[in-house]
């Protein structure tokens, strides 16, 4: 490992060597390495091929800003695409692969096209593959194959994820020097503090500048002391490897913690999460998110071996990796100097090329002492090399204008580091509407420390444009003083010294690109060159948001962390505007990519969605029920016996209900207990029909309308006493109806004395259906007179069933003799089993929702949500009988029924439909039209709402809406429609929707 140096500040553990695989080749690294640092240490320079031109690319950054080093980590179910090698912690046995470069990294097919890159400008795909338009799907397929990085896992994820909610008085985002100081001051004041930091180790950029001293201590000792104190405070929580990726209104911050991916496979615990999504609600937020260094833009600036100066410093100081032996540092500011000095001290040859005319004397002296050659007033027009950087072409720049005066020397090098200044990490600040301001003195979009203090958001450190450590710490102190004072807390600065040994920085030069004729890239990940921005401006794109979308500047997994500000500045130059006039694009969550697993958390598998079960579930499972979800309830759909398909099962279940006895679990229906002296009046207003005369012991069906007069729910309501009614609602509508009742009572009719409470879960309901149901019930019930005269249709009775207190309703959704037996749900399973036992001699048949639907359709009973869709009045349903227009007080929806549109007689109306072919079952949703000629335009008369095969009738039946259908039903010659679906128009006759027992003889027995 020729690129390793050992020094006392390195954070890698040279006593713990690790081996890993990249692209099929085995390499050595050390504990504490990232994949990127280990690859650089092994001299691996090319790790990717570029998106559009297939150019070789190397590692540029050291953290989340990295645009090139997207790698595929791990294999099989654990494989993860497009992680940045700079953020992947090394463990023994790690398997990584490139995500670009086909057929290989050494030769990429796209690079052949890349040679003609001047023929592939921004908008190339839009412009080229436009014609003929029908070929686009083909073009798209080919383009999509060529584009993209990495591969999604195809095996199910074997890992688990979860969410955790936090409520803290203060959240600090960022564990660099200023973030640590902020957390310490807040922690000492007694606030509950959470600090999140995205790296494996706290310290931020201090880890890259270990020779700096703070308060007389070296940076590592200073931060270790603070971290130790923070860990000792019970009111402070530190979360490492945790990236705050979104800041929402009211200071809700989302952060994702990587919990296991840094561990050796064998060390990962199956009971532990792979990632955890933290949802943090913080009264105050301190953003100490720092800054990323942006590179300068020049010709061939994308060659492997060209990195940012801060990355150079980080790899050297933190990981003991020298990226080369002959390094050129190109800079527009003083920030890059320290790394040059550090490397020179380690014996590496360093040359500085500074675009500024003069140099700070203190630095000049140090450079001289170390033999660092400096070129002042020079830039680099282009890097030389084909697969990696071999040298640089210097150019002398005009002292003021950004123009080349003359060519300079050609210098050989194996690494070129550049610094164009720092771009504060303002992303979180901007997520909920904050905007950064351009600061010309800092050459950066910055945010102010307390501009959003009213919202509880404070900013400290480099995010505010303060790039000197000492000044950053002092201003952090001042900001925390203000914050803590606003909370009535005192600041405790004991044993804190914030002085550093920094050399005062000279002003940076405002320069973003160095003039060149060679290809100069702004955004590496999307292959956006200076010429692309030029082209966008030439083609009259004016807004930076449009230039971004035309060129793809700032897209991708790095979201332009390195490239955006350069792009804005270059666009400004070309538009003849200032940078603040051009402004920034919009910063939106997520700051860095977040896995679907983390977002889903526990909402997967059997906890994906609440599954509501009735007390009879065990019986249903035992009888092999297939289930369907209704309003989160798991309802038996049908009960297939061995060898039966759904149709066979449903036919059998239907015939059992019509000819013998069958049983349905009706527990899921909403049940609302309503009491008070005004309960009848309340129901008169809530329902379309009248409730004043319903006697205790009786039930009635009711239609509930919304204000527009449209049917919203239905159900049977029983009069328990003059002041006590029990309402049933549809399964899916229960919660909505409950809120509806409360809303009308609380806001419109508070004078009515009624209270209502949901008893849905308290009762289980077994519907015993069929001609033999009375005989079955009689075996279990001795205290209710089941005689047809004593216990009539639409009556209810209290009694006991199988020894359990029960309320039995003689109501029917099938048209058969039926009893709905309600018991305390604790006894639900027991009573169901007793009913099954009692019914065994009659071959009692459990049935599900599908049979329930067929039985009710045979009777023409509607299902709210199937026959209704929010645009259907009771009259449209031919249910005028369920509307009490003469009630003294109005009811909800009454006035709307008088609107000209609802009152007209030629609306779409519900009718029955019979096909000519009794075996043809119409398609639900089929359009109903007047003729079999389907040549457009075809007037659409309505549609099929319900359609089944009726085993009892031995033919198909259907219901549907037809314009003026009620009249047409009885008009011979005008009663034929065609149902159009699947390219066929099938003839059907409009008939009554009651197909079975119109006179009600079957249930009145």
């Amino acid at each position: 490992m020729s690129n390793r140096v050992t020094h006392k500040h390195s954070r890698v553990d040279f006593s713990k060597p690790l081996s890993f695989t990249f692209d099929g080749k085995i390499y050595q690294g050390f504990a504490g390495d990232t994949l990127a640092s280990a690859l650089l240490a092994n001299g691996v320079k090319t790790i990717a091929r570029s998106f559009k031109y297939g150019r070789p690319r190397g590692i540029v950054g050291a953290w989340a800003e990295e645009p090139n080093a997207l790698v595929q980590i791990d294999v099989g179910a654990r494989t993860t695409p497009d992680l940045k090698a700079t953020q992947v912690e090394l463990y023994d046995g790690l398997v990584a692969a490139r995500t670009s470069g086909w057929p290989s990294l050494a030769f990429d097919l796209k690079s052949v096209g890349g040679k003609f890159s001047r023929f592939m400008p921004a908008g190339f795909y839009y412009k080229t593959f436009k014609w003929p338009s029908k070929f686009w799907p083909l073009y798209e397929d080919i383009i999509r194959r060529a584009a993209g990085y990495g591969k999604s896992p195809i095996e199910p994820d074997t890992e688990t994820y979860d969410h955790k909610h936090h409520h803290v008085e203060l959240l600090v985002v960022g564990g660099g020097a200023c973030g640590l100081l902020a957390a310490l001051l807040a922690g000492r004041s007694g606030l509950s503090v959470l600090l999140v930091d995205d790296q494996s180790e706290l310290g931020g950029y201090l880890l890259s500048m270990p020779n700096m001293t703070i308060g007389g201590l070296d940076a590592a000792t200073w931060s270790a002391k603070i971290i130790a104190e923070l860990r000792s405070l019970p009111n402070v929580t530190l979360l490492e490897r945790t990236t705050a990726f979104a800041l929402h209104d009211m200071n809700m911050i989302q952060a994702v913690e990587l919990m296991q991916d840094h561990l050796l496979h064998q060390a990962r615990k199956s009971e532990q999460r792979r990632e955890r999504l933290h949802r943090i609600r913080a009264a105050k937020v301190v953003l100490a998110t720092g800054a990323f260094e942006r590179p300068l833009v020049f010709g061939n600036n994308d060659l492997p071996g060209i990195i940012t100066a801060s990355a150079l410093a980080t790899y050297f100081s933190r990981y003991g990796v020298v990226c080369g032996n002959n390094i050129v540092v190109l800079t527009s500011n003083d920030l890059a100097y320290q790394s040059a000095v550090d490397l020179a001290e380690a014996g590496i040859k360093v040359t500085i090329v500074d675009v500024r005319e003069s140099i700070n004397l203190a630095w000049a002296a140090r450079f001289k002492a170390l033999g660092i050659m400096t070129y002042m007033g020079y830039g680099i027009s282009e890097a030389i090399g084909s697969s990696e950087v071999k040298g640089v072409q210097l150019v002398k720049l005009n002292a003021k204008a950004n123009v080349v005066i003359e060519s300079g020397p050609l210098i050989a090098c194996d690494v070129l580091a550049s610094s164009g200044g720092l771009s504060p990490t303002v992303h979180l600040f901007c997520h909920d509407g904050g905007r950064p301001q351009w600061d010309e003195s800092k050459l950066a979009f910055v945010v102010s420390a307390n501009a959003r203090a009213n919202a509880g958001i404070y900013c400290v450190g480099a995010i505010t444009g303060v790039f000197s450590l000492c000044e950053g710490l002092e201003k952090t102190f001042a900001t925390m003083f203000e914050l803590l004072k606003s909370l009535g807390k005192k600041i405790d600065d004991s044993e804190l010294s914030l002085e550093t040994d920094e050399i005062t920085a000279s002003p940076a030069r405002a320069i973003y690109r160095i003039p060149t004729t060679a290809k100069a890239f702004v955004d590496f990940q999307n292959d956006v060159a200076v010429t692309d921005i030029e082209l966008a401006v030439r083609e009259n794109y004016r807004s930076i948001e449009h230039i971004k979308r035309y060129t793809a500047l700032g897209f991708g997994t790095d979201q332009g962390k390195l490239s955006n500000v350069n792009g804005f500045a270059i666009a400004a130059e070309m538009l003849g505007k200032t940078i603040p006039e051009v402004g920034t694009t919009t910063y939106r969550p997520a700051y860095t990519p977040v896995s679907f697993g983390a977002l889903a958390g526990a909402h997967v598998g059997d906890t994906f969605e609440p599954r509501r079960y009735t007390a009879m579930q065990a019986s249903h499972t035992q009888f092999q029920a297939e289930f369907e979800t209704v309003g989160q309830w798991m309802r038996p759909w049908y009960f297939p016996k061995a060898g039966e398909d759904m149709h066979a099962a449903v036919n059998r279940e239907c015939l059992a209900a019509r000819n013998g006895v069958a049983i349905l679990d009706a527990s899921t229906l909403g049940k609302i207990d309503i009491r008070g002296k005004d309960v009848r009046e309340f129901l008169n207003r809530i329902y379309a029909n009248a409730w004043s005369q319903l006697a205790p012991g009786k039930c009635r069906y009711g239609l509930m309308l919304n204000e527009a007069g449209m049917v919203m729910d239905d159900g049977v309501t029983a009069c328990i006493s003059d002041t006590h009614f029990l309402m049933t609602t549809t399964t899916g509508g229960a919660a909505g109806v409950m809120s509806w009742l409360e809303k009308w009572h609380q806001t419109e009719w508070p004078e009515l004395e009624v209270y209502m409470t949901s008893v849905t879960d308290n009762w289980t309901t077994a519907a015993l259906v069929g001609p033999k149901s009375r005989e079955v019930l009689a075996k279990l019930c001795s205290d209710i007179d089941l005689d047809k005269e004593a216990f009539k249709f639409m009556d209810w009775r209290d009694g006991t069933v199988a020894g359990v207190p029960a309320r039995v309703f003689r109501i029917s959704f099938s048209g058969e003799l039926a009893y709905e037996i309600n018991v305390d749900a604790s006894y639900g399973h027991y009573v169901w089993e007793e009913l099954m036992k009692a019914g065994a001699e009659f071959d009692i048949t459990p049935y599900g929702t599908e049979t329930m639907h067929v039985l009710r359709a045979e009777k023409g009973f509607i299902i709210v949500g199937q026959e209704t869709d929010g645009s259907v009045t009771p009259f449209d349903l031919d249910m005028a009988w369920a509307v009490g227009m003469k009630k003294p007080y109005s009811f909800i929806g009454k006035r709307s029924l008088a609107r000209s549109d609802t009152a007209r007689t030629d609306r779409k109306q519900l009718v029955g439909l019979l096909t000519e072919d009794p075996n043809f079952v119409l398609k639900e949703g089929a359009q109903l039209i007047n003729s079999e000629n389907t040549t457009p335009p075809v007037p659409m008369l309505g549609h099929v709402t319900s359609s089944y095969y009726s085993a009892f009738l031995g033919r198909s039946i259907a219901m549907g809406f037809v314009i003026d259908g009620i009249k047409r039903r009885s008009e011979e010659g005008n009663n034929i429609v065609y149902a159009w679906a699947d390219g066929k128009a099938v003839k059907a006759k409009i008939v009554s929707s009651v197909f079975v027992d119109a006179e009600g003889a079957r249930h009145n027995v």
Partner: protein
Amino acid sequence: MSKLTFSPVMQSPLHHFNLNANQQPIDTSKGVWANEITLLGYISLRGNAQNVLFTKAAKKALGVALPILPCSLISASWGYIYWLSPDEWLIVCARELHAELQQKLEAALVGNHNQVIDNSGGFTTVFLQGKNASDVLHHCTVYDLNALTTGKVVGTTFGKTSVFLHQHGNGYNLIFRRSFADYIWRYLERSALPYGFGIANLGSS
């Protein structure tokens, strides 16, 4: 009609998990311990808290005054009264006591507009304790448990559904609807996995 004889059997909402078969005495081996407190009596009560006649009559029947402060609960010798909304309470007691309590309440409240309902089949209670009980709940609910002081009960989120939640001893009680029980228990189990999840022997709590 002949007299029939039956032996009715009750099942709690979490019956199918067969929790008691797997229960153990609480120790430090798990971060979280939980179990269902099965088949309690639940009475829903509604009435006007501003009406002194109502509150007095309720107090007479229950032996303790109804909690009137938002989100408060009162512990009585026979169980708990939870404030659910300004005119709504949930009364929880042993199943054998609830009929008597309900009758007393109904009798005392005659003439005062009210609603007294036996909702015993509709609810269940799970208790949760152990050193990571709060951690587990923080995975399940957005509620700030630091704000859940003794004597406070809140209706809050739990995964994609809701529970009533209060501190109980050195742990928590979760009260929720029967039909959501399966989901809530599975969610709790999943959330507790990293901490170690034990089914607590009720006698040891």
